[in-house]
């Protein structure tokens, strides 16, 4: 599904990503962990076209997408959520998700017809799937952090991606919220047969759903494999102080 080959990116003299190679198979759940500053967000930005890599390639569904514009990559079936809240604050929850569906279905260019009720059924169905259908008309910027994170997920799912990239999906959440969020994500991913690549800080989260884990440290993958293997890895234990080992 997704294949990263020797991706590199430096800013000035600082190497953010120094030769990362990784694959994600269809329907697979892979987690990238690593301390702050390890390069996780930069790696995501390289994959989704926000930044161009200095060298290396990104292949998605057999196609080379290295350095393509974000909107093109999204249209190919890659969905993404952001670490910080990145929604459309003055629009309602409904409008947030509806807009993504309108864009995905290619109706964005239509200058005629009212947009207010377009794809209502599909939007409400998606809202129901992520548990926000009762707050559809609330202004998204006024909702709680957790709810906004759910909207983030909804927007990413609206593009009907085959691969979902989630950047720290449970950042800033309490223990209960985290459990719920992960359960939701896990269920949706399995129901829709999606591949999932996500970054995380919380070890419990990672070990609960990841099928494979990659450990990023100073821009390099120092370990990669099934959870138990990674947990036992001496390098990982040395580098990754804290968390649950």
């Amino acid at each position: 599904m997704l294949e990263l080959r020797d991706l590199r990116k430096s800013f000035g003299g600082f190497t953010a990503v120094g030769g990362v190679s990784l694959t994600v198979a269809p329907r697979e759940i892979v987690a990238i962990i690593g301390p702050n500053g390890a390069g996780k967000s930069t790696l995501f930005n390289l994959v989704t076209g926000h930044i161009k890599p200095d060298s290396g390639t990104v292949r998605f569904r057999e196609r080379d997408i290295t350095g393509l514009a974000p909107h093109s990559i999204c249209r190919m079936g890659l969905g993404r959520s952001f670490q910080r809240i990145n929604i459309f604050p003055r629009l309602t929850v409904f409008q947030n998700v509806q807009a993504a569906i309108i864009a995905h279905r290619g109706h964005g260019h239509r200058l005629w017809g009212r947009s207010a009720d377009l794809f209502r059924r599909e939007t409400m169905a998606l809202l129901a799937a992520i548990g926000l259908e009762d707050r559809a008309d609330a202004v998204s910027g006024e909702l709680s952090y957790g709810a906004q994170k759910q909207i983030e997920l909804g927007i990413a799912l609206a593009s009907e991606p085959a691969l979902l990239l989630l950047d720290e999906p449970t950042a800033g959440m309490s223990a209960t919220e985290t459990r719920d969020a992960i359960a939701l994500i896990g269920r949706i991913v399995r129901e829709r047969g999606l591949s999932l690549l996500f970054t995380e800080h919380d070890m419990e989260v990672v070990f609960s759903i990841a099928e494979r884990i990659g450990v990023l440290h100073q821009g390099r993958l120092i370990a990669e494999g099934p959870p138990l293997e990674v947990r036992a890895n001496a390098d990982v234990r040395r580098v990754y102080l804290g968390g649950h080992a």
Partner: protein
Amino acid sequence: MKPLPLVLWAAGLAALAAVPWLGSRFYTFIATDIVILALFATSLNLLLGYTGLVSFGHAAYFGIGAYTCAILMKTHGVPFPLALAAAPLLAGAAAAVFGFFCVRLTRIYFAMLTLAFAQIVWGICFKWNAVTGGEQGISGVPYPDLGWMSALPLVGSLRVGEQYYLVVLVVVAACLAVLKVIVDSPFGRMLTVIRENAERAEFVGIDVRRYELAAFVIAGAFAGVAGALFAIFNRGVFPDFAYWSKSAEVLIMTILGGMGQFWGPAVGAAALVLLNQQITAYTQYWPFVLGVILIVLLFAFPGGIVGTLVAAGRRLKGASRA
């Protein structure tokens, strides 16, 4: 905000149409000015309020539309309908060329490039004596041939200036209707989304630059129509139609009325024209008054006239329910 019922629209239009019979020639004059500027300001709002793009050079397209109409009608004797159709085409084409470069920039750089382009247009109008009449502009732009109106029952008895007002009203109403359809459409929704979060819009599959350029061209085209109508109303065109102060004027109108509402700019245009009339009758220091109004607006009423009214209305509704 729930869409206003069609009845209110029709009533408003009828009220405006009745002005030539209700008031003196002066009222018709003011009303023509307001209606044309309402279109100009609403076209800017497609960029400002709906897409989040701040243009300091929107007057360029107003000027291009005005000069196109004037040159075609005065110098080449082209009939009004053709000249009116040509104005948005040329203005839109210019917007496409300028916009292509502008949308590759963001925020302050975007604004400054729009300003630079507008001043270039002004400079061309100012210097190209042969075509644009240079500093003197083009005067004596003729009224369109409205002879056919004299045959109509009510309208036949009106003076040509008032007949022209009715033509302006019909054209502007049609343009505003088209703009309303556009902002309510899926395309309009994409623009709002870009305004709210352009980065996220990219990651949802929207080619932001292309949409911004489309908005830029549409806004420019409608500004061109307003310019063409104004050229005739003013009986002449002058380089300062494209000057940055005109861009500032239309920007202020839009914000004064409220850039968050469709009718905000139109209300702002009316407010500014009427204020100008009233104040310049008493003092020559209109810029001072305008500056003070603007400051008060920015601090106390950021939503503009319509925005403040809507917010107050919501509060009242909330209070009455409680």
